[in-house]
């Protein structure tokens, strides 16, 4: 019993940085769950990745101006991400180029610019910090930012839920009845960028997307409604955060990859045993049909 306590609860009771890390995971999970689910539903799974990298130059400029301060880097990253999303949207609107192609172009420009800025004005350590994050170094300011982002995300999702679902399901219909599909799409992209920024302090720009996408695609094997998908995705994200922290503490692993790998494991388990189209449930259903 004591051993179990030492493994599962002890680290969080004894160390403030573990406690903060856990709270950060909860905040991240609440926002990342619904964001990831809607990214998947909009068939923008890979665009999330793209957006994550595009925040880098903004974060780097924030770092150059204010040092290792999350509000400055966060604001810079948020503006850079929004700018890339906006320009890509405009390009796809006014030329024949599709949104994913223009996204890819601008994020590469943005990422290269970011790496250039960080490596000329910072050290390799800083670059590693921005790319991979350190959830165990989350300070109070960062925690407030994450909690704020989670709160804003959940409130805004509640406001735009109905039009966002309609827009994802059948955007032509929503536009035909005068629904503000474009506005809803823009607000949603803003939430994506906001949650990226919130995630990069803890997990880094490379890993932040993992905590959005893996729980969202895992949830698909458990439930079949948009709201329940979002809830399950948040739950999976939080479990991944908790288990990832425990593993990283116990085996002295870097926390970001440990969290995202745990989410990956949960995805693979869902893929296998999920009751909604998981591999095992599909097989047993086929066997029933064969009789």
């Amino acid at each position, binding site marked *: 019993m004591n051993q179990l306590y030492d493994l599962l609860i002890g680290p969080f009771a004894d160390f403030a940085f573990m406690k903060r890390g856990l709270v950060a995971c909860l905040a991240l999970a609440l926002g990342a769950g619904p964001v990831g689910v809607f990214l998947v539903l909009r*068939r923008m799974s890979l665009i999330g990745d793209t957006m994550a990298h595009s925040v880098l130059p903004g974060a780097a400029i924030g770092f150059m101006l204010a040092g290792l301060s999350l509000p400055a880097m966060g604001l810079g990253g948020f503006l850079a991400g929004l700018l890339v999303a906006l320009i890509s949207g405009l390009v796809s609107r006014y030329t024949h180029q599709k949104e994913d192609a223009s996204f890819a172009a601008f994020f590469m420009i943005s990422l290269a610019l970011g790496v250039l800025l960080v490596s000329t004005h910072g050290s390799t350590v800083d670059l590693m910090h921005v790319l991979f994050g350190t959830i165990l170094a989350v300070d109070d300011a960062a925690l407030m930012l994450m909690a704020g982002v989670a709160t804003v995300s959940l409130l805004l999702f509640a406001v735009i839920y109905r039009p966002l*679902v*309609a827009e*994802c399901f*059948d955007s032509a219909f929503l536009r*035909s009845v*005068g629904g503000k599909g474009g506005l809803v799409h823009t607000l949603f992209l803003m939430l994506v960028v906001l949650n990226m920024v919130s995630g990069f302090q803890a997990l880094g720009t490379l890993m932040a997307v993992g905590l959005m996408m893996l729980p969202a695609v895992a949830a698909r094997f458990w439930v*079949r409604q948009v709201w329940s*998908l979002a809830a399950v995705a948040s739950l999976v994200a939080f479990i991944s955060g908790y288990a990832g922290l425990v593993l990283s503490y116990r085996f002295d692993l870097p926390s970001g990859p440990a969290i995202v790998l745990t989410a990956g494991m949960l995805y693979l388990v869902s893929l296998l045993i999920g009751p909604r189209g998981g591999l095992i449930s599909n097989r047993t259903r086929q066997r029933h049909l064969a009789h």
Partner: protein
Amino acid sequence: MSMTSIVTLQDLTVAYERHPAIHHISGSFAQGSLTAIVGPNGAGKSTLIKTIIGLLSPAQGKVTLNGMKAADAAFLPQSTTIDDSFPISVMDVVLMGLWRKVGAFRSIGRKERKIALDALALVGLAEFEGRNFGSLSAGQRQRVLFARLVAADSPLILLDEPFTALDARTTLDLLRLVQSWHEQGRTVIAVLHDFEQVRRFFPDSLLLARELIAWGPTETVLTADNLKKARAMSEAWDEDAEICLGIGE
């Protein structure tokens, strides 16, 4: 014509990147008419219907709706534009038809649910409300989308290829529903491919080949001569051909 028109097109031209998809179309749909839009592939049939509903803007000319806004019309997009694996219940899809009344924020109560349930019963899907849209067959999904149109209760209904890839039974049931809308005095405009279907069920037709070939009673529109003319025009199309100089930017 003595009847009042509900949709009037005046010299309507719609272009994609300055290449006209349809040009210089004028005429009107009478209130309560049942019209099929037909023509070869690439003739601009979907473009025309999307412009009427306001999804595309004319490069030149205009669409006038009589006594209603475009947002009050009920529209069925091509089924390929809808994500059929989307995690949504049948009930929620049908309730979307009430958008004009409930919009993004107003609550959905017993009255709205009753409208949706009645609409489902009308398309032969009573007690399907709790099912997942993605778990249905293609025919059942199209019935659900027709129930959404029923729930919208609009005087003007626009259908973009409503019967493509459907089984014969579903097609016939849904055609009967379209006829009942016609009998109730609603105006229905549908993009169709099957000329036999059009001759049997649609009193009026509009034959399109980027330009208007003919518009009026179906038997005077779907003549051998007109169809030959439409086909000849479609064979002459070249995607990178003329930029219509008549279009102002």
